[in-house]
């Protein structure tokens, strides 16, 4: 199969680890008096190692996800992702994999929104609607063929 984007740009990972906010968060983790709510870094930790469906790189290495495009308000989690190219046909698989990984990992009362970052894909409106359609997402999990691809992505690169 011919690759759509044969030479994707690979990014340095872990840059955010030097931000003040992240350093503070790390310190707090060891303080028993400070409550550790689920924050954007924790969400990022859950999704960063997902394998890209086309390349042997992680979503973090391809800068498809990064902590600054994740936000949390109460039990609402928003994850915006950036496909490597605007006509990437893998965007649907990536979105579904992100959503399903988070559905499996987060407490069940969390409302999870996965969207393509604005102006980053030619079919972003169409795909964002699909990621938000619970019936479509749950039917995908019951489709063995699709589930295999999604699980392969979730299994990730270690």
């Amino acid at each position, binding site marked *: 199969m011919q690759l759509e984007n044969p030479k994707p740009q690979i990014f340095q990972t872990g840059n955010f680890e030097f931000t003040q906010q992240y350093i503070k968060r790390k310190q707090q983790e060891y303080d028993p008096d400070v409550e550790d709510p689920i924050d954007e870094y924790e969400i990022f930790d859950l999704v960063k190692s997902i394998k890209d469906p086309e390349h042997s790189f992680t979503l973090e290495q391809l800068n498809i996800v990064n902590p600054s495009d994740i936000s949390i308000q109460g039990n609402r989690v928003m994850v915006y992702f950036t496909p490597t190219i605007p006509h990437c046909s893998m965007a649907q698989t990536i979105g579904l994999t992100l959503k399903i990984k988070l559905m499996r990992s987060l407490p*069940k009362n969390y*409302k999870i929104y996965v969207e393509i970052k604005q102006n980053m894909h030619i079919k972003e409106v169409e795909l964002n609607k699909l990621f*938000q*359609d619970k*019936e479509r997402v*749950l*039917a995908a999990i019951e489709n063995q063929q699709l589930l295999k691809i999604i699980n392969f992505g979730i299994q990730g690169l270690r």
Partner: protein
Amino acid sequence: MNCQLLKDHKERVWQVAWHPNGQILASCSSDKTIKLWQLMNDQYKLIQTLDECHTKSVRSVSFSKDGQFLASGGFDTVVGVWMYDGSKYKLIQQLEGHESEVKGVAWSADSNYLASCGRDKTVWIWDHEDLEFSCNCVLQAHDEDVKCIKWKDTTLYSGSYDNSVIRYTYGEDDEWDHKQFQIEHQSTIWSIDIFNKLLLSTSADCTAKVFSIQDGTLKPIQTLQGFHKEPIYSGSFSYDGLYFALGSADNKISVFKKDAIDELGYPHYALDQIFDAFEFDVNCVAFNPKNYLLAACSDDENIKVFNLQL
């Protein structure tokens, strides 16, 4: 609030539907089963688990108006037809034809027609002779998944992922004619309910709308906006049209009451109550056909029958 918890499903419960006698409730779930619950001594008791039809999530369930039949639709593309034999509902036929997940099943008022709809963008109409069901017609009028269907007598309405509603009528030319309505929902239409000449639609745009069905059109009467923060998966009129309830992915149920009639004779509904009903998404609400009991079900695997004390 007075409420009974019906607990036996092992996964999310997608839909609940009342038997026309108001005594039996059917529920269907991702655990691939349909369960029947009967009112006995003021308590709903599980009387039957129907597990021999579907191999994937059961998305929709519906009793025929005479109670003789029960239909079920599943993600496995199958429509199940069950018949009451005097003591139990038994599987009599599995209808195949849909290419992907079936999302809704519904019986016409005279029980002559069964309709099913699904992700393959089609609506199938099935009829029966000597208890043998067969396809009467396949209607492909929507551009996207057909999420819900509802009969008004022998006219059928469907709601879709393409944000529109379509009405199907059996014409004099022995064909099903259709007419599409763009009813200004900004996203998927998840449910339709009908009471007399009123149609209630609920949408992923977090609103619900009430329309008057007249002269072959849908005239918008009221938009219910700002009550729910997440998609509204279901809406249901009470048997007398005095109330309707909405169930949403924000885990809440809201109940609206008819409080006025305007100069043109159209009703106006006002919020009566809104409450946290479940831990997770509310997938379906259904008013009892005889009284003000409201059945509802959720992703948290539970079913509740609320006595709203209206």
